[in-house]
């Protein structure tokens, strides 16, 4: 069948072809329908005319391999593929929603709007990394938002699956990506680092907040390589009233050395959702690039071959940077339990040097104080709990960027904790058992409910009998 000449009304393997949505250099997209189809669909047909470059086909092949393996709300739902030998095509969900490209056209945007858009995108990227895939070509045109605000990543033609052969690398043997968004290590030919996607997110944040691209759109390899040694002008140079926390986050994502960026997209999503918690460093207020000596040093380094690091799949990167939620009740006066939890968290923090510890307590509305509770009383209780959390965590002796603190409130502590864990991509919850107090008999066990409902591993800490 000649797929290069489809027109509305054509039939392909039971799909009725509708309008042509997009015609790019690599592929053509059509709306399609099928009897009993439950959601809108599109068909992607690669350009394989006589004489077309074989790389068109490799991108299509890679997208087919990877998209078929992905699930969840942050990628288009997979429908089917045509037999590649005679009629190559893919059918997937047609995601109706605005593209990040449309928002980028409106830049500069207010910081909180940019933070919301990119926090949703970081959530999608974390979900992708958890499924062993690095996108490696994230740019506004490849991000769509569903009506509910969830971000969807599309176009996996340059992506890398940790368990599949890397057909892209073998085909091109040179850096591939989009000039404005490609990370320094991708320029050097490294396609194994999930933090490359975080660099692209930093470029997007910069673009949304300032209306400018931090590295422009170079057209030559020499132009690409400039980002190996020349850091971008801090965004507050362009937008002086950009909040310091936003510049802190942007420059953290745009660190030249991947190990200095956020360890995971989940950490980035958390900071964008809780800007008041971002510890400010020198990045926050800087108005100039790094000095000449630093640039010369980086330039020198960029001319050496990178040491070939042992290949690691994306999930092994994530495994070294878990998000750990510690649920405490510092006001309950159970010092032995607090010490036991401290010991447990110390072990976790020592095991994974990039883990982030979120110290959380839940304020339950207290029946006895309810009548006389004024706002001041609640505020002072809130502050007291926060101070107690900080006091407890000081014993961990961890740098500020590895700690976050939250006082939550709600009548149902277990439900509040589970929801917090879900929203913040928590990998492990560490909490104390309430013990065999009268309170527990009356209210039931919070930890038992968290264990039953949490989306992650839960460790319940107990003090040996007689010591509590």
């Amino acid at each position, binding site marked *: 069948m000649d797929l290069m000449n489809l027109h509305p009304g054509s039939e392909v393997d039971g799909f009725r072809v509708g309008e042509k949505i997009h015609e790019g250099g690599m592929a053509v997209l059509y709306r399609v329908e099928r009897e009993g189809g439950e959601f809108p669909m599109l068909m992607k047909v690669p350009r394989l005319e006589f004489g077309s470059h074989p790389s068109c086909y490799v991108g299509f092949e890679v997208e087919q391999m990877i998209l078929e393996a992905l699930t969840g709300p942050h990628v288009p739902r997979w429908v089917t593929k045509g*037999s*590649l030998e005679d009629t190559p095509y893919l059918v997937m969900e047609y995601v109706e929603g605005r593209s990040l490209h449309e928002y980028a056209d409106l830049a500069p945007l207010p910081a909180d709007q940019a933070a919301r858009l990119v926090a949703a995108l970081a959530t999608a990227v974390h979900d992708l990394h958890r499924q062993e895939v690095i996108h490696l070509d994230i740019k506004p045109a490849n991000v769509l938002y569903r009506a509910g605000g969830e971000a969807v990543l599309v176009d996996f033609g340059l992506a890398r699956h940790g*368990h599949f*052969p890397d057909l892209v690398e*073998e*085909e091109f043997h040179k850096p591939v990506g989009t000039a404005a968004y490609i990370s320094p290590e991708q320029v050097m030919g490294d396609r194994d680092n999930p933090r490359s996607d975080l660099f692209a997110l930093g470029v997007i944040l910069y673009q949304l907040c300032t209306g400018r691209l931090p590295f422009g759109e170079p057209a030559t390899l020499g132009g690409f390589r400039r980002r190996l040694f020349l850091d971008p002008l801090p965004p507050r140079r362009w937008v002086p009233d950009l909040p310091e926390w936003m510049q802190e986050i942007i420059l953290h994502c745009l660190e030249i050395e991947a190990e200095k960026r956020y360890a995971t997209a989940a950490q980035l999503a958390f900071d964008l959702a809780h800007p008041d918690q971002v510890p400010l460093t020198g990045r926050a207020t800087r108005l100039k690039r790094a000095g000449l000596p630093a640039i010369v040093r980086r330039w020198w380094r960029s001319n050496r071959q990178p040491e070939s690091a042992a290949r690691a799949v994306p999930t092994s990167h994530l495994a070294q940077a878990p998000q750990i939620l510690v649920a405490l009740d510092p006001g309950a006066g159970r010092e032995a339990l607090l010490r036991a939890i401290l010991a447990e968290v110390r072990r976790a923090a020592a095991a994974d040097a990039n883990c982030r510890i979120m110290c959380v307590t839940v304020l339950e509305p207290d029946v006895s104080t309810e009548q006389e509770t004024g706002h001041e009383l609640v505020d002072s209780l809130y502050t007291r709990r926060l101070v107690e959390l900080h006091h407890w965590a000081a014993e961990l002796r961890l740098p500020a960027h590895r700690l976050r603190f939250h006082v939550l409130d709600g009548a149902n502590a277990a439900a509040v904790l589970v929801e917090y864990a879900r929203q913040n991509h928590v990998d492990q919850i560490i909490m104390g058992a309430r013990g065999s107090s009268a309170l527990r008999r009356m209210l039931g066990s919070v930890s038992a409910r968290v264990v039953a409902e949490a989306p992650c591993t839960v460790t319940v800490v107990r003090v040996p009998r007689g010591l509590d």
Partner: protein
Amino acid sequence: MKIAVLSDIHSNLEALHACIDHARRQGAEQYVFLGDLLGYGADPRACLEIIAPMVSAGALAVLGNHDEAVLGGLCENLEFVARDAVYWTREQLRQTERDFLQSLPLAAQDGNAFYVHASAAAPERWPYIKGAAAAAKCMAASGLPLTFVGHVHNQVLYYTAGSRAVQVFSPVTGAAIPVTPRRQWLAIAGSVGQPRDGNPAAAYLLHDRQRESLTFFRVPYDHWNAARKIRAAGLPERLARQLETGH
């Protein structure tokens, strides 16, 4: 349809049982034995008593160099311990088992897949596929999209990349790898009965014909018992130790 590809069983009954059980739980409906059913291990007859009925029922099997040696072929290319095992195995076999081995072809073909013990290029000379050049020759000779071989005891996946040299990939255990058309893929199944990569677990692979994917597996089995039987049979000590250490 899922096809389990088992190679280099080498008379290891415990490993054979474990792999067939594992494949059945994974939904395998067809079995292919890529040769070297015998040699090294202590259970040649018991292994053939499992394999021969499966072949009568439709499973495919091809001949390996150790099987050929057991039938009386030359042993010069085999190491001394392997020769000892071949001589011992010859004494164990009855005529029915020899007839079964005699009936095995050097290569087989089914749909888009080519099956051979060593290489599709000169299968009777038992070359080892140790790199991209040998893999390219094998794929050119097979001419089919998928080629399955054993002989080399490690699990490896080779594939053609347009005009470029053949590429090599080390599969991750248990992860399904899509094998796309317009390329040729050469899968080395690994050894069921004598792994040599330091991991004593048995190796095989599963080909999902509907999804066109390959999944390489490692299956732990009671290798202490298999080693004990090798010692009890009076076979060379090194063969027992190899099962215990995976080297």
